[in-house]
């Protein structure tokens, strides 16, 4: 994610997680080519590290302060100082290595910070775009030991044969968020737009489901077709709209101190449930029944796979 002017201190220097910063420029072909690689890696390491980019032409003061003498330069930060850095395009595994070096350099206490909070105080929120696997995640959490807060008003159907795990009251969060009072220790599903309305005096653990937008669109279209609803908006237009909205959301989310989020790739979850479930468990405090969670995954539900 691109750091804006003035965010560097809070996001990088004051972070208690390993941070990788990519100093880049628009006129540098390797820098441009590294973008998708960094985005992919950011999702993979989302539960323990952050990756940010700094455009040296837009923030020359930052680049000068850290004596960036070439681009792309990748610096790994831990506890406010640079642990290691390299200039020139790197492979994904080399980038990961930088972050791991930073992780080893972090004081142990900081890493364990999250575990100190009392399990029962948290509200676990499952969010993402529609059709990104949120219902599935709700079922997994239920199996793993976090009860789901749901009224089961929306019935299971061909699109979600195991139920939607929704709570009607959640949909009115922007006007009435009193349901939150009953939600500590439970998990609840909500559309990502509503996260902005959660009362800030509580702490939430957000599981953000991410899925290839093309797949989401296909799944959505299949669902609309089954329900006889037609839409005139072309897929590419829809994709652009969704992506723009997501981008602003992804920029907003990490700035919220009451929301502790973890990204879960739907596609990776399907490919390697065991590994992803262990990551989720670590993020949620390490008390879940991982085997039961992985057992919930039924690959036959994974119908709209990207070609």
């Amino acid at each position, binding site marked *: 994610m691109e750091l804006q*002017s003035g965010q560097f201190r809070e996001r990088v220097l004051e972070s208690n997680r390993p941070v990788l910063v990519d100093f880049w*420029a*628009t*006129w*540098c*072909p*390797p*820098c*441009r*080519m*590294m*973008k*998708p*690689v960094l985005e*992919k890696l950011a999702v993979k390491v989302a539960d323990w590290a952050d990756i940010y980019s700094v455009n*040296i*032409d*837009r*923030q*020359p*003061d930052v*680049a*000068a*302060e850290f*004596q*960036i*003498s*070439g*681009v*792309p330069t990748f610096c790994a930060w831990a506890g406010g100082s640079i642990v290691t850095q390299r*200039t*020139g*395009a*790197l*492979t*994904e*595994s*080399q980038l990961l290595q930088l972050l791991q070096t930073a992780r080893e350099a972090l004081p142990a206490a900081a890493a364990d910070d999250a575990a100190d909070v009392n399990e029962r105080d948290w509200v676990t929120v499952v969010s993402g775009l529609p059709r990104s696997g949120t219902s599935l995640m709700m079922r997994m959490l239920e199996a793993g030991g976090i009860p789901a807060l749901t009224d089961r008003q929306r019935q299971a159907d061909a699109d979600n044969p195991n139920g939607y795990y929704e709570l009607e009251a959640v949909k009115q969060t922007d006007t009435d968020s009193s349901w939150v009072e009953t939600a500590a220790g439970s998990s609840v599903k909500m559309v990502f737009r509503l996260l902005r309305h959660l009362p800030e005096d509580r702490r939430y653990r957000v599981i953000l489901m991410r899925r290839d937008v093309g797949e989401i669109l296909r799944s959505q279209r299949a669902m609309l077709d089954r329900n006889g609803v037609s839409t005139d908006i*072309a897929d*590419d*237009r829809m994709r*652009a*709209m969704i992506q*723009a*909205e997501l981008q602003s959301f992804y920029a907003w989310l990490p700035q919220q101190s009451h929301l502790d989020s973890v990204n879960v790739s739907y596609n990776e979850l399907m490919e390697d449930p065991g590994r992803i479930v262990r990551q989720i468990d670590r993020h949620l405090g390490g008390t879940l029944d991982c085997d039961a969670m992985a057992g919930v995954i039924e690959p036959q539900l994974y119908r709209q796979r990207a070609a």
Partner: protein
Amino acid sequence: MTNTGCHNAGQTCWSCPAVEFKGHVDFRACGQAAFRKAAQGQLVVECRRRPEIGYFDPNSITFESCSEWKETPDGYLLDGMKVLILGMDGYLGWPLALKLARQGCRVLGIDNMMRRDLVAERGADSITPIGSMEERVAAAREKLDVEIEFRELDLMDRPALAALIEEFQPESIVQFAEIPSAPYSMADVERAVSTVQNNVVGTLGLLFAVRDHAPDASIIKLGTMGEYGSPLTGRPLFEGLFPGDAVLQYQGQEWSLGGELTPRDPVSFYHVSKVQGTFSVYEACKYWWLRSYDVMQGVIYGNSSAELDLDPAFNTRFDIDEWWGTVVNRFVAQAVIGMPLTIYGSGSQKRGYITLRDAMQCITRLIAAPPEPGQYDVVNQVTDVFSVREIAQMVATIAREFDLEVEVQRIENPRVESEEHPYEVIHEKLADRFGFESESAFADEVRHLFRVLLQPEIRARIINQQDTLFPKTRWSGEHGELEVLETWKPAA
């Protein structure tokens, strides 16, 4: 978020050629010293067209929201954008001038008229009659109500070129002024030298003139897919630069190749000149913050576009001889006069192809979405990959619709090239980033060609120069007739 979905709606003043960067701009290349004085602050711009706005953040205005950019079928175009077309008299230059002028660009073209002489030297001429540049410009004025400006000027006349660029202040520059023939460059030393001189030195001189007089103009540089060659390993032909996740592994170590230029393996001295052009442009972007799209174009065919189809007075030149023609155009001409379609060697050589109409759309879309300062990028401008044998078969099949019985002939390959090879072309950027959608399919374009070339006066012109169709130029330098290996009538 954008409302129109145009490919360039979200681009900002960062890449607009109508703004001037203010404050400290230093020229640095990747991996080279990038120190900048901290006190300089961020870059700001001033709009040459709307100076009343003052200095502002170049990210704050998108093309979509700027009153100077107008929506067209090929994306937003800077209203009255000043486009300099180098080589406007050529096969591509003229249709592009018509298209851009019609979309509201202010077009100025130059040409030294060399192509007409070179084709005449071969004993050939454009198969579709073309007027003088003055006649063409007059026709455009009369029938399209557009003013295209033309000046006869040689790209090699560097002082004149620099003066022209200083005077016109182009916002986009299309470099089509190169000698475009592989066999010509292999014919003898004089022609090889002439090709390299014109193409390499001409482009180099252009880059200096742009640096000095119009550094914010985007340069659309025409390259060719032939720069890549056809690697026998089957390595994909990426779009000029390796993708970010390309990795080189050797002796247990690994390195990223992301963003590096992919290997070039040109297939004639003409292609060598194009590779050199690629490097010159790449370096100029690095050293001077120039900006360029390097277009690796497939073999072009056809003679149709929205403008060309309006009136024969708009005809672009159409060559079919061994040196200046390209394969699809030549096959149709051969079919029209009952001459066997000549395949070199096995005919399994695969190449990328694109119609003239689609190529013009691509170039227009690139002009509409200029690169950012210092950005060098490459697109593979190709819609289809065919083997020569497949093309012969398709042309023969379509010829039957016109009651023409066509033979195909394999002849000894005059070129030095691999005849059996894998060929995987990556061509995604134009569709993904520039909104390109093909408007013309092979069969339709070839049918259109048959209709044009079967007109009696055009057919007579082909018959007149049929001796120029059969190849004579060998890459080896040897002389003598090429041997016919096999002749057959393709099955229906």
